[in-house]
């Protein structure tokens, strides 16, 4: 009998964590993938060998299917042998106490004493507006109102396929505190290219130290944003209140209440 099976109340060793199926440390994982090989017993064996190399024991191809042109699809279960040390994990996160919409409005009134101005767009070739609309537009997303609904916030949504230069020009025109760049398409790292271009332009305009540069999107993380020279990055499941909590807090932290105009 294995170590784990002796007791149902085995303590988790956080320095050696592995997947959980129905018994602690059983290591159970599932994956699915396609190999460019014809369907058959050899294909299944190839899938088994592949996940063994990934550190899986007792791989079980529970399903495979002929994709029709020399490709085979697999669902595989197996037991992972690797562990991670959970006690050593460090994640870079936007470090801010999240306030709700009403609290944000009050916080700005009390601590900033003027409206917070934000401009945003889905820039470059990206045609997706869902992200920037979710953050800025009145109706927001999934019951979380957008910045247009916030008190003491002036928000401008320029839409999609906006050139980076145009968004920066708008930021200067309305004397924005923050620029929000939304990126949805990530094929061939086009978002990295575009976000880098934006960061460089803001720098070249000489306003990098006068404005908060933020990006967001389903594949954006705060860590990535920081690597690219942004102040903050907002990934999935972040809403307008997260973004504004960050911006308002940061303005106060930096003493930008009476910041001179950008122009």
């Amino acid at each position, binding site marked *: 009998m294995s170590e784990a099976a002796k007791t149902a109340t085995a303590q988790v060793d956080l320095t050696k964590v592995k997947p959980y199926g129905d018994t602690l440390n059983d290591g159970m994982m599932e994956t699915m993938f396609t190999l460019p090989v014809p369907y058959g017993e050899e294909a299944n064996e190839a899938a088994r060998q592949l996940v063994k190399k990934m550190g899986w024991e007792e791989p079980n191809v529970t399903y495979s299917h002929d994709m029709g*042109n020399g490709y085979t699809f697999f669902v595989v279960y197996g037991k992972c042998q690797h562990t991670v040390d959970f006690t050593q994990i460090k994640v870079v996160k936007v470090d801010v106490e999240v306030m709700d919409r009403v609290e944000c409005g009050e916080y700005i009134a009390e601590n900033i004493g003027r409206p917070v101005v934000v401009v945003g767009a889905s820039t*470059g070739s990206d045609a997706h507006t869902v992200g920037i609309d979710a953050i800025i537009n009145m109706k927001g997303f*999934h019951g979380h109102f957008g910045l247009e609904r916030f008190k003491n916030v002036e928000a401008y949504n320029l839409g999609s396929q906006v050139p980076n230069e145009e968004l920066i020009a708008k930021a200067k025109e309305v004397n924005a505190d923050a620029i929000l760049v939304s990126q949805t398409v990530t*094929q061939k790292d086009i978002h990295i290219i575009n976000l880098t271009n934006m960061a460089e332009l803001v720098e070249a305009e000489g306003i990098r130290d006068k404005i908060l540069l933020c990006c967001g999107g389903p594949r954006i993380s705060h860590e990535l944003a920081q690597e690219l020279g942004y102040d903050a990055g907002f990934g999935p499941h972040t809403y307008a209140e997260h973004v504004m909590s960050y911006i308002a807090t940061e303005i106060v932290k930096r003493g930008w209440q009476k910041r001179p105009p950008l122009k």
Partner: protein
Amino acid sequence: MKSKLNLDPKVVESARNHARNIAHDMQDFIDRHTTVSTERTILRLLGVDGIDDVETPLPNVVVDHIKDAGGLPRGVAYWIGNAMIQTGLQPQELAEKVAAGELDLTKLPTATAKEAEEAIMPAVHEALHKIKAQTKKREEYLARLGEGRKPYLYVIVATGNIYEDVIQAQAAARQGADIIAVIRSTAQSLLDHVPYGPTTEGFGGTWATQENFRIMRKALDEVGEEIGKYIRLCNYSSGMCMPEIAAMGALERLDVMLNDAIYGILFRDINMQRTIVDQFMSRVIIGYCGIIFNSGEDNYLTTDDAYEAAHTVTASQFINEQFAVLANIQEWQMGLGHAFEMDPDIENGFLYELAQAVMAREIFPNASLKYMPPTKFMTGNIYKGHIQDALFNLVAVWSGQSLQLLGMLTEAVHTPHMQDRYLSIENANYIFNNCRDLGEEVEFKEGGIIQQRAQTVLAKADALLAEVEKEGLFSTIEQGKFGGVKRPRDGGKGLEGVCVKDDQYFNPFIPLMLGGAE
């Protein structure tokens, strides 16, 4: 047919009348104007193709040349017809000479408009003949190989490399797909020219080029022969080059094209005057060659709330229908769009989606309704996503949709992988087969949630259309009544490409195509 939703036929008729008046009102504007893209379309149909030494497409070179000389109000058909008389050259030869700087079309001696029209007619008929030959080929394929059952399974390929797209498309066809849509590289909608040649490095898709169309058409014909079923090809006749791409689609036998009378205005910020004129030419071509258009109503529901804004979808369907009627598009070619986009947390959301889908079918009984899958509330939880797609498929078979754009469990994660497409086809086939005649068996409770919902949405659509009719389509869009997006009449991209026709202007294709020539 008795309405299962107990819809009042008088309200349907009223809504349709409003839409008819809206479209007719716009047609007066359309008839007075032309655009650079409409003119380039005429050139493409006349066989002008290729690029100059800085990769500007020859149709652009010629139209810009005429526009710069102030000749656009007369139309390129006149200038080309006239130049054919004066030089004895064919349109392609003329274009090459213009590109080489060896010819100024507007400085030649001028014949009358009637003479120019006569001179160009053989080339016009040759183009129509080519298109009709493609239409006939489609009919032959359909007769010989047959086609899938409706709802057609419609999947996308979007690798950015047309040759990789071919592999994915053929695999999808073998797995059961009926329609392959080749996704376009992002931002093509805003280019005021059509790129040239095959694409191997696009972003989020490939360029819609004539060469790409040709490559994919050939691949689908091949796989169609192999599996014994005609596979339809779809691309986008939208954006700044809407009519040019329709012409390319007609020449290369595309079967389905995304094409919406007002989508470009709302969602791509293309100038409204430009789009309205462009859509007419594109739709005349589509009507003529038997392409099914897909309108973009699903987009209202991703920008606006799908529950609250459902009536804008219905209103837009009526408008798209009536613009299509004016372009002589048959009902079966009308792929009016809608989508399964309500927040999955809404109580009874399925009932509301069902009401909307059944209503679309009842109002447009002969249209090839195009149903779009959930996207906005797909999360990366692929297991829940697969169930959302299953409910979407259930509504589709129940309500008798025609073109089913299959939802992908990995929506919001990446463009579809080969296995995602297989899983979505399996999902649809299972549900369509298992519930095939559900719609015939089930009636709805009188005055129940489903009936009431449909009646309310229809009434709101009728009221919106009445308002649009009163104020005019342009000013309604200026006020942001569609998709919650406001667009100024003189704003957006491409206005500089619109001009008023002079009294001798002619476009030889419009009357012939509307009349079903050849």
